[in-house]
């Protein structure tokens, strides 16, 4: 793996500086039915298409941000801060 990610704070960096944080998913409400929690905890969509996901800039600003990455080519199509609108 050697693809590049553009950290919203630090700019374009090699993926080795980051930690992958998984698919972007909504955390169920605490009283949500058990199957919903089970799906959240143990199931992944694992798509072969552009996917929205979390990244953490471990060797940089140490912030969480979001990226849209094509899982087939590892091309990162966009990155943004969680509070900002997704481009």
């Amino acid at each position, binding site marked *: *793996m*050697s*693809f*590049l990610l553009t950290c919203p704070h630090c700019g374009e960096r*090699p*993926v080795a500086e980051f*930690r992958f*944080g998984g698919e972007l998913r909504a*955390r*169920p409400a*605490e*009283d*949500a039915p*058990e199957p919903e*929690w089970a799906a*959240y*905890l*143990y199931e992944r969509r694992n798509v072969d298409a552009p996917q929205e996901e979390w990244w*953490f800039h*471990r060797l940089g600003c*140490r*912030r*969480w941000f979001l990226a849209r990455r*094509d899982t*087939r*080519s*590892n*091309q990162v199509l966009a990155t943004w801060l*969680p*509070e*900002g*609108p*997704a481009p």
Partner: protein
Amino acid sequence: MSSRAAQGARIGRREARARFSFTFDGRRVEAEEADSIAAALFASGVRIFTRSFKYHRPRGLLCCAGRCPNCLVNVDGAPNVRACVTPARPGMQVRHQNAWPSLERDALSAAGAFDRLLPVGFYYKTFIHPPGAWRLAASAIRRVAGLGCIQRGGTPEGYHHEYRSTDVAVVGGGPAGMAAALAAARAGRRVMLVDEQEAPGGMLRGDDRTRVRVGPHAGQTSAEVAERLAADLEAAGVEVRTGAVAFGLYEGRLLGIEQGPAAIELRYDGLILATGAFERPPVFAGNDLPGVMLGTGAQRLLRLYGVRPGRRAVVVTAHDGGLELAAELAEAGIEVAAVADGRAAADHGLAASGLADLGTRVLGGQTICRAVGGRCLEAVELAPGGGRFECDLLCLSTGWEPADALLAQEAGGVAGVGTLVWDPAAGVFRAGGTDGRVMAVGALTGAATLEECLALGEAAGLAAAGAPGPSAPAPPGAFPRTPLICPGSAAGRRFVCLCEDVTTKDIAHAVEEGFDQIELLKRYSTASMGPCQGKMCRAAVAESLAGCTGAPVEAAVPSRARPPGRPVTLGALGAEHAAPVRRTPMHDRHVELGARMTDLGEWKRPEVYSSVEEECRAVREWVGLIDVSTLGKLEVVGRDAGGLLERVYTNRCMDLGPGRLRYAVACDDAGIVVDDGTITRLEEERWFVTTTTGGVEGVEQSLRWAAVPGPGGTGACAHVTNRTAVLAAMNLAGPRAREVLGSLTDADLSPTALPYLGARQATVAGVPALLLRVGFVGELGYEVHVPAGFGAFVWDALLEAGRAFEIRPFGVEAQRVLRLEKGHLIVGHDTDSLSNPLDAGMAWVVKFEKADFSGRAALLRASERGGPQRLAGFTVADRAVIPEGSHVVAAGRPAGRVTSYRRSPTLGCGIGLAWVPEADAREGATVLVAGASGLLSARVTLRPFYDPAGARARS
């Protein structure tokens, strides 16, 4: 006659070349400046350079361009060095490979006589019976298999990684590559040109025969053009990396390059591949004899090193280039016995008439059918007609193949990028398209003439620079194409793959056995899986497969090419050293005190100073000091900091007053314990969190995750700072700890002023310190945090002050024993990825009454259901041996496991923690543990082994 050519313009520099010597198998070899190892060896009479992989057949120079496997040698201990492209250096020690006792007489060449015993895919079907035969055979095979020997012990110096960036990267320093680099640089871009030879120029180097007909370089010879362009590159500021092999295209616009001891990761915006083309060797009987050479190989020896590749030559060709080669050989004083041209005589160009003037016969419609010789080439037989010519050199110039090792990696089929497609006109596979950042130019795309290469290169360079220029590059020319598998049924092996010694017969056998698809055939016969990775044989394998099956050649689509496209030195690849070692501020003190150091994650920690028993006793009876700087330390500050901590940790902390602290456990959303530590409220909005040694990164990420604002939100006002390296920490523990610490501070340490689980700022030995009263080891204890620079100073002060109280430094092993006596678990050691705090006996840290926190939903369900096992303490008789990980056995089946076990010096028996069946997790129950010497009866306890009431830590 000497091998060194004595005349000719290209050799005119010879007199000026400095001379030196190196050794080959201990023998002295004379070399001239700028010689490659192979050139110097060839000039000194060496013809056999290596022995083949399987049959140990003698092999000599073939490509002279670093592609084929025929000249791999050991240089100063480094195996598999390509002699033909590695410059000779004075004093270097070169040794042969894959032959014993010598290249001339190789005992293992007898293998060739037993090839019936070594059929294609023999390792899949021999030595299967009797049972165990393979084990014996494998060890024998391993001794003779493989190429080269790795130098053991000692790390050669100088290997390193380099990270570079450029706007435009150009691979290949031939005319197209140089023109492209120049155009891009002149358009204002930063350009790096990568070429594997010692100077740029590619095929132009040393060529003073070909003259440019049109364009800015009209009238100049190829060699002059190369020199001019090289000077222009320098003037334009192009960074030229010579002796550099580009071996891989990686995602993220990354080009992998090996240059000497450096592995370079080059990031580019645009990439121009101008890797050229190389000659494809035809397959005929005896085609691996030393003396059989590619036409370009012979040319390189002659042009670059002034070394005659032979005395009497036969040239086999199918295009005018071969005829020109024959003339060049003749001019260099080599007798050309015959030229076999696969074309009919009527198709021969002007070059043929030139040859006729030199008195050389051109045989139209003829090709090679057999090479004859013992160790080296002695004669060739042509077909049809069976003409036989004595010679010691056979030059093969029958057609070209694009050097697409890199391009084929790009054309790997990922989104937006094309795949390899068959070009029927050229009879080759080409990259069907690229993603726009990668362009291919020059001979790689079929351009044949120098003028074409220069024009295409310039256009590509301008395009890569985003500058205006001629838009649509000219359509690629066609590669001359001839059948690769020569006709005739002459006796002698016909090698399709030289690296792996695979013959046409092997291919036929494999196809007969059903391996008739290219991918299957490749894996079964190992053809194209050797050092050259198919560069010499891919087309020949496809053609011989087609010959066997009758399917068209284009059905044999090449496999996906993956990096590395060329062999790369492991030393260079492995030179990236990213294994951090972390040391505490008191590290030097531990070493001076004679501690045995141990690795805990990235940290170095003292395992034991003197003896574990003595260290334990000191803590229990007097006082001990341990370096706990490796604890993760986080400062969490802000209005919302407390709320943030309550979301990540299972217990409460908002109810703590300033100056109070609490043990805390963090879970993930599945309710699994991920870390534990303490939370101290320093001030109303300022918190100090300690984590486990390895857990700080995860906890910090979790806290930052919990603080992430939602879409459109502004985020919590809570900030996390990692202060692990800022603070040195030590734990002063034992009944006399208060007296020791009291002698270094004016602060009131009385139990009322600083009670158990209290915290305060104080000055210790003149250094500002944070004191936390904690009891991990179960005694009166102070965790002293001071600025890291003063760590050693305060450590010294505490040891000095404690001398009157028999103080001892203690290591992590004593700490493990002491905490086990208290029944304290270690996250990740006594818990795993299935352990929740309820089953681990810590239900009291989970506060369901507070608002949502990480793991709440899962833990609620777990609390309703209960788990199958509980973490409990157990005791066994003294001196029992129970390795950690041993089974807890119930009804003859594994029903749990031991996570910690030590002999307790305080209690005089064996104590441990184990996951036991839920039903057995009660005070006084008996379980069976599978110890080192059989089943042992263990008594379960749910209370600490030592001081169950915890009075000592509170004292």
